[in-house]
Structure formats: structure tokens, C-alpha cells
């Protein structure tokens, strides 16, 4: 089977001199309808690797090697405009800390319309319908109220779901989620993750999920990529990695996760 997204030998450095290597030769892939989790400690280069896929590396950081293939074609050397047209349509993103991701002077509706207008010409009615159904998909029954709100009027969990709705509204083939739940409590986290998973199943979407939490990976991943110090140190099916991690940092992650889960299991609580 052909991978939806294939990253090969990715190299990322700081633009300053002397350059510092941030990601060294990272390779991973995402298949349609499956979730690949990139797991690692903070500073392991997992977020940068994922941000580089749609060409969103922050200023001061640049990609110096490797290739990114999406549906078999290279996208890392596409002209800016072509890449822009991919973002939000074929490749969507959900990011961490939703509060800071929205522009506080605009309503949710104008964020939403702007996303749609960047890619499609729709009538007002069609756009309205699209927004409402996207919001309904992430569990908002009162979509109109959400649309009229300003970002700071919603809670973090709600904003994260709005973000997901925006990402899903144009039927992406690939969803990149960068620590989407690290600022949420466990209940809100489960909600967002469940919605993401349902969307994946519903539209056979590939998901690239970045997280430091092996529990999240356990819940979501078909395959897991473990990163440490800018390198991919282990890749495999989720079940295999949980059962028999090979690399030290993978072992540490699994052990930490098991340790965290053990007491509840000992109490006999079904999780």
C-alpha cells in the first residue's frame, strides 16, 4: 500500500551561525485512514518535523535536507502558492494552545469564512451550511452561537473543537495535530481525541499526531514514531512498540506510561 504522506531523511537546522541541528534524518509515513503518532520528550524535534510537512517552520529555522512526499509527489519544493492551496484543504492542522491560535479581534465565523474563502468560491448559504455541518460534526448543536462568538468567549476545550471543525470542513486527506490536547483536562482531551478519531474513520483520513503522552498514543495510534534528540529512534506498529520497545527512550516512555496506569489497574478500575 502506498503511503499518503512520506517523509524521508528530514534535516532541520537553526538559521543562525553556527547552525544547530534540530532534526537529523527523520523518516516516517502516514497511511490513509490511519493514525501515526510521533512521540517524544520536549525538545526531541517532533513538533518541528511535523510543522515542516506543510512548510510552516518558524522563522530562524530551516529545512536543509530530505524530502516530503504527499500522495506520492514531492511537496517540500512546491512554489509558495501551490503549498498554500494544499494547506487547509488537503493537509489541515490542529495546534496546541488554541487560545493563542485565534485572532482575538475576529469572530469564529470570520475565521471560518476566511478559511473557506481561501480555497473555494461558495455562496453565503453554501458556506453557512458547510460551517454548521462542520460544527455539528464536532458536537456543537448551537453552531450559530459558536460562530457569533469571539475566541476569548469560549473555553479552551471548545476552541480546540472549533479548530478541529475548521480543519475538517474542507475534507482534508491528512490531518496534522500538534499536541492538540496538552492544555486540556482529561475529559476535554478525550472528547477532542474521540472526535478526531471519528473523523478519521468517516473520511479515511490520515492523521499525524504529535504528543508526549504515551496514553494518547495508545488510544489513537496505528503506528508510532519515537523521536529523541532530533532523531527517529524507533518506528513500528503501536502494538509492537507497546509490547516490546527496543530503543532506550522508547522503553522509558512505555515504562513511564505503564507506571502511570498501574495504580488504577491495581485498584481494579477498568480503563
Amino acid at each position, binding site marked *: 500500500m502506498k503511503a499518503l504522506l512520506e517523509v524521508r531523511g528530514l534535516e532541520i537546522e537553526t538559521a543562525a551561525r553556527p547552525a544547530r541541528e534540530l532534526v537529523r534524518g527523520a523518516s516516517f509515513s502516514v497511511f490513509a485512514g490511519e493514525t501515526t503518532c510521533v512521540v517524544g520528550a520536549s525538545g526531541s524535534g517532533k513538533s518541528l518535523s511535523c510543522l515542516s510537512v506543510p512548510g510552516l517552520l518558524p522563522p530562524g529555522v530551516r529545512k536543509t535536507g530530505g524530502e516530503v512526499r504527499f500522495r506520492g509527489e514531492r511537496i517540500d519544493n512546491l512554489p509558495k502558492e501551490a503549498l498554500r492551496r494544499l494547506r*487547509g484543504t488537503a493537509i489541515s492542522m490542529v495546534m496546541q494552545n488554541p487560545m493563542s491560535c485565534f485572532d482575538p479581534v475576529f469572530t469564529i465565523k470570520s475565521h471560518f469564512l476566511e478559511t473557506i474563502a481561501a480555497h473555494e468560491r461558495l455562496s453565503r448559504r453554501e458556506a453557512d451550511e458547510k460551517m454548521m455541518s462542520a460544527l455539528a460534526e464536532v458536537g456543537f448543536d448551537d453552531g450559530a452561537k459558536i460562530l457569533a462568538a*469571539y475566541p476569548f468567549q469560549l473555553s479552551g476545550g471548545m476552541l480546540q473543537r472549533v479548530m478541529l471543525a475548521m480543519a475538517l470542513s474542507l475534507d482534508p486527506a491528512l490531518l496534522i495535530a500538534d499536541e492538540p490536547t496538552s492544555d486540556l483536562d482529561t475529559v476535554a482531551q478525550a472528547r477532542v481525541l474521540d472526535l478526531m478519531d471519528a473523523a478519521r474513520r468517516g473520511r479515511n483520513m490520515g492523521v499525524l499526531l504529535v504528543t508526549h503522552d504515551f496514553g494518547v498514543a495508545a488510544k489513537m495510534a496505528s503506528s508510532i514514531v519515537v523521536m529523541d534528540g532530533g532523531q527517529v529512534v524507533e518506528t513500528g506498529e503501536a502494538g509492537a512498540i507497546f509490547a516490546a520497545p527496543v530503543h532506550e527512550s522508547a522503553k522509558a516512555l512505555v515504562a513511564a506510561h505503564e507506571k502511570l496506569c498501574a495504580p488504577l489497574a491495581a485498584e481494579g478500575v477498568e480503563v
Partner: protein
Amino acid sequence: MGRYILRRILTLIPILFVVSVVVFLILRMAKGDPAMAYLRMSNIPPTEQALAEARIELGLDKPVAVQYADWFMKALRLDFGRSYVTGRPVLEEIMHYLPATLALAGAGLLLTMAVSVPFGVLAAMGKDRLPDHLMRAFSFVGVSMPNFWLGLLLVYLFSVKLGWLPPMGRGGAGHMLMPVVTLSFMSIAINVRFLRAGLLEHIRSRSVLFARARGVSEGRITWIHVMRNAMIPVVTSMGMHLGEMLGGAVIVENIFSWPGVGRFAVQAVFNRDYPTLQCFILMMTVIFVLCNLCVDILYAFIDPRIRLAGEQR
């Protein structure tokens, strides 16, 4: 929005009231006897009897609270007393000079906005390149340049040396040019720095990253998101600039012999013409406060966080 505006207008009333009390009280604490000043200005020899009569005439024999109440009731009828110097109603005098000053300050504010916005954008877009360095140098010169010196330099260059512009007085557009540039130079410099800093901050923000991730075009990101957010502090600073301009007008009017209220007020200070001074500062404060009100309303219009404060969730 309507409620916000109403609330803001209502808060002005106590502020203006307190301002009037403060101005009144400070004047009463002034060095020197107003009655004496009054006599001096009226060329009446200050005998004991003349002083006593003047006190009664000026109402200085009553308790301060009564004096204030008298003054306040008159002020409500727009009667701010008569100038010790000219003997004419103060308000009339000030109103006579005020339009020239407002024209100056208004033109200055306009020039500030018209020049600083493109300059600020230019600096931010060319960060760490030549346009940015030029703008930064300019803004440092701008905030360090004494406006009275700048005015004189301009007069020297364009009137004395080149003979292009009239050195003083009010008349056509040529008369406006140097005073307005002098007046707004510092504000332009401050605004350029302000806007540059704001633009750079927002270009790096996560909301811009998210907009890119949604495929929003760079043009829209720059002109809609970054610009609108960066304009918020610029707009809020406009009220402050106006204060600076009203003050600066006093100096500029003196340099260019501009027939405005500032020059008149400086004379009033020299002459200890208290009624004039009192009315002058009240008028200026009212103008300043009203303009700040407009700025606040504009601010609330741009930034929903202000408009909706206290109505969250």
C-alpha cells in the same frame, strides 16, 4: 456598543467635575493676591480700600466652597469671567483664538497618521534591511529632536536661506507647512516605532501560524490580521498624541507667530491673568478628554475584548 458609549460618556461627568474643582482650588492656592493682580491690570492704585472693594467684586470674601459654586453656576452658563488684561469675557477671547490652534493640531494629527503608517509598515516589512535601519534612525532623531529647535531650523533653512516659505503668521498652505511638520515630527517618530514593534510582534504570533496552516493568503494575513492588531496600540496612542500636540501647539505658535490660543495663554501666564488661564486649561482638557473618548470608542470598535468586557462567557 451603544451601552459602552453611554457608559463612557457618563464616566466623563464626574471626571470633568473633579477637574474643574482641582483647577479652581489650585488657582486659589496661587501665590499672590488675585485682587492685587486685578488692580494692577486695571491700573488702579492698590490702596487698602481698593483692595477690599476688589475682593468683594471678585467674590474673594466668601468661603471657597461658595466661590466655587458661584463660579460653577456661571461656568454652566458659559460665563468664565473677564480677562484681567483685556477686560473682555474670557471665553470670547479663547474662542477667538481656538480655531487656529485646532486647525494646527488637527492637521498635525492627520499628518502623523498619513506618514507614520506607511513608514511603520515599510520598517517592519524590511526588518534588518535598509528601510528598517533608515526608519529606526529617523525615529530616534524624531524622539530626540526638540520641537522648538526643529522649528527654528526649518525657518532658517526654508525662510532665511532658501526663501521658499513664509517664516511666520497665518495664511495659505505655505504658512501651515512648517508649523505642522514641527508639531507632528515627534509623534510620527513615536508612531513609526510603535507600529513597527506591533507588526513584528504579530507576524511572529501563533495566530498567524494558524492562519497559514489554514491556507490563508499572505496578503490577507498581513493586511487583515497583522495590520488590524498592530493598529490597536496606534489608535489608542492617538489621544495621547493629541495631548502632545495641544501642548506642542503652544510652542509652535510662539515660533511661527501663529495666532492661536497657546500664544494667548503664554501671555496670560506672564500677566497672571487667572480667569484666562483657568478657562484655557479647562477648554484644553475638555478637548483632550473628548478626543480621548472618541479614541476609546474607536478602540472598542476595533477590539471586541474591550467592547465585551464584563460580558464574557
